[in-house]
C-alpha cells in the first residue's frame, strides 16, 4: 500500500468543466474495492456516503498529474475492449476474482476524459487518471486491468500510446444476439448522437432510429477492432461462443496470468453466475436470442454488421489455425 498522506484512499469520483476549467472531484474510498460489475456502481455508493457529500475535494488536473509521479498505481496488465452484451462483464468479473488484481470496469471518469480535447486529455493525463483509480486496495494487489466502455474501441490508439505494449482483447458476439439484447434493454450508444463526443458522427439514416443507431455504432466498433488487430500487436479476439472456458485458457495466457494457487474453484464460481445479475446463474443464451430476432433486427444486421462480424471471425479462426 502507498504511504499514508493527505490523499491516501482518495480517488477521482468525477470530472467536469467548471468556469471553463477542467475540474476533478475527489472522493474518499478508504479500503473499499471495485467489486461491482461496473465501476460506476461503486462510485455511486461512495458518492452517497455522508463524508463524500460534504467533504469532497476539488482540484485541477495538475494535482492528478503531480500525484501520479509519486503514486503511479498498479501496472496495467490488460485491457478488455468489446461490442457490449457479449460476455465482457463476465470477463471483468472473472479478473476481479483474482486475488491480486484491481479491475476498472467502464470507469466514467475515463469516458469523460476521452471526450475532452487536448491538452486536457493528453497521454500523460490518461495515465495519471488510471494511476489514481488503479491504486492497490489490498496488500495482495499487484496488477490492474481495464475494461473500457464499448465505444472506447475508437480510442485504442490513444490508450495503447498511454500504455504501450499492453495486451488487449476484443470480446464480441453474433451481432443478431447483441441487437436482441439492446432491443430489450437499450444501451447508451443507442441514443442517436450520443457518440459525437467520441468523434462518431452518425449518418442521417440512423438519426431518428435508436436500434439503427446502435447497429451503426457497433459496426464502427467492430471495424475498429479489425483494424486494430492489423495495426497493433498484443491483440486477441474472443467470441462469446468461447466463454467461459476461454477465460481460463486463452485470456489467462494472453494476459500472462499465473492461475496456479489462485483458486480456480473460486474463479469458476464467478463464471457460473450471471455477471450483471449476480444472484442468477450464467448460461449461454445464443439460441434463445437468435430465435427472438425479428425481421427488423435481421435487416439491421445485414445492413451494418454481418460483414464486420465475418471479417473478425476469419481473423480469429485464422489466428487459431496459425497458433494451433
Amino acid at each position, binding site marked *: 500500500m502507498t504511504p499514508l498522506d493527505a490523499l491516501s484512499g*482518495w480517488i477521482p469520483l*468525477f470530472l467536469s468543466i467548471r468556469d471553463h476549467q477542467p475540474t476533478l472531484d475527489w472522493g474518499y474510498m*478508504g479500503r473499499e474495492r471495485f467489486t461491482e460489475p461496473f465501476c460506476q456502481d461503486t462510485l455511486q455508493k461512495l458518492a452517497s456516503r455522508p463524508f463524500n457529500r460534504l*467533504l469532497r*475535494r476539488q482540484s485541477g488536473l495538475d494535482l492528478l498529474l503531480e500525484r501520479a509521479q509519486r503514486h503511479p498505481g498498479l501496472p496495467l496488465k490488460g485491457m478488455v475492449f468489446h461490442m457490449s452484451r457479449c460476455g465482457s462483464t463476465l470477463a471483468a468479473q472473472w479478473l476481479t476474482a483474482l486475488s491480486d488484481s484491481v479491475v476498472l470496469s467502464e470507469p*466514467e471518469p475515463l469516458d*469523460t476524459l476521452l471526450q475532452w480535447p487536448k491538452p486536457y486529455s493528453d497521454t500523460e493525463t490518461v495515465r495519471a487518471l488510471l494511476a489514481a483509480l488503479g491504486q492497490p486496495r489490498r496488500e495482495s494487489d499487484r496488477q490492474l486491468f481495464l475494461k473500457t466502455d464499448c465505444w472506447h474501441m475508437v480510442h485504442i490508439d490513444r490508450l495503447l500510446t498511454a500504455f504501450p505494449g499492453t495486451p488487449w482483447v476484443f470480446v464480441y458476439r453474433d451481432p443478431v444476439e447483441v441487437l436482441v439484447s439492446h432491443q430489450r434493454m437499450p444501451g447508451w450508444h443507442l441514443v442517436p448522437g450520443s457518440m459525437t463526443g467520441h468523434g462518431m458522427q452518425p449518418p442521417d439514416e440512423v438519426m431518428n432510429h435508436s436500434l439503427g443507431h446502435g447497429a451503426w455504432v457497433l459496426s464502427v466498433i467492430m471495424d475498429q477492432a479489425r483494424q486494430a488487430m492489423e495495426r497493433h500487436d498484443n491483440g486477441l479476439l474472443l467470441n462469446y461462443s468461447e466463454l467461459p472456458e476461454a477465460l481460463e485458457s486463452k485470456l489467462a495466457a494472453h494476459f500472462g496470468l499465473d492461475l496456479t494457487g489462485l483458486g480456480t474453484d473460486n474463479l469458476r464460481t464467478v463464471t457460473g453466475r450471471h455477471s450483471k445479475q449476480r444472484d442468477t446463474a450464467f448460461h449461454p443464451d445464443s439460441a434463445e436470442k437468435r430465435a427472438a430476432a425479428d425481421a427488423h433486427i435481421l435487416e439491421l444486421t445485414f445492413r451494418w454488421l454481418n460483414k464486420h462480424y465475418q471479417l473478425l471471425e476469419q481473423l480469429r479462426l485464422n489466428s487459431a489455425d496459425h497458433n494451433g
Partner: protein
Amino acid sequence: MADISDPAFQALRQSIHDTPSLHERLFNLTDPDDFIAAVRQLASIQGYDLKEEDVRQSMHTGRKAWIERTRT
C-alpha cells in the same frame, strides 16, 4: 464543494482534509445523523458552532452536484 461559505467552515474542512486519520473514521459513519454529530463535534473543538441545518444543506448540495455532473 460545500456551499457553506463561512471561513470557519472552510477552515474545518481543510483541517479534516489535512488529517488522514480522520478520513477513515468519518467515512465509516454511514448514518447521516452520526456523521453530522461527529462533524459538529470536531467544529466545536475548534471553537466553531456549526449548525446542523447548515451541514444538511451542504450535504444536499454535494449530492446534487454528483447527480447533476455532466459526462463531458
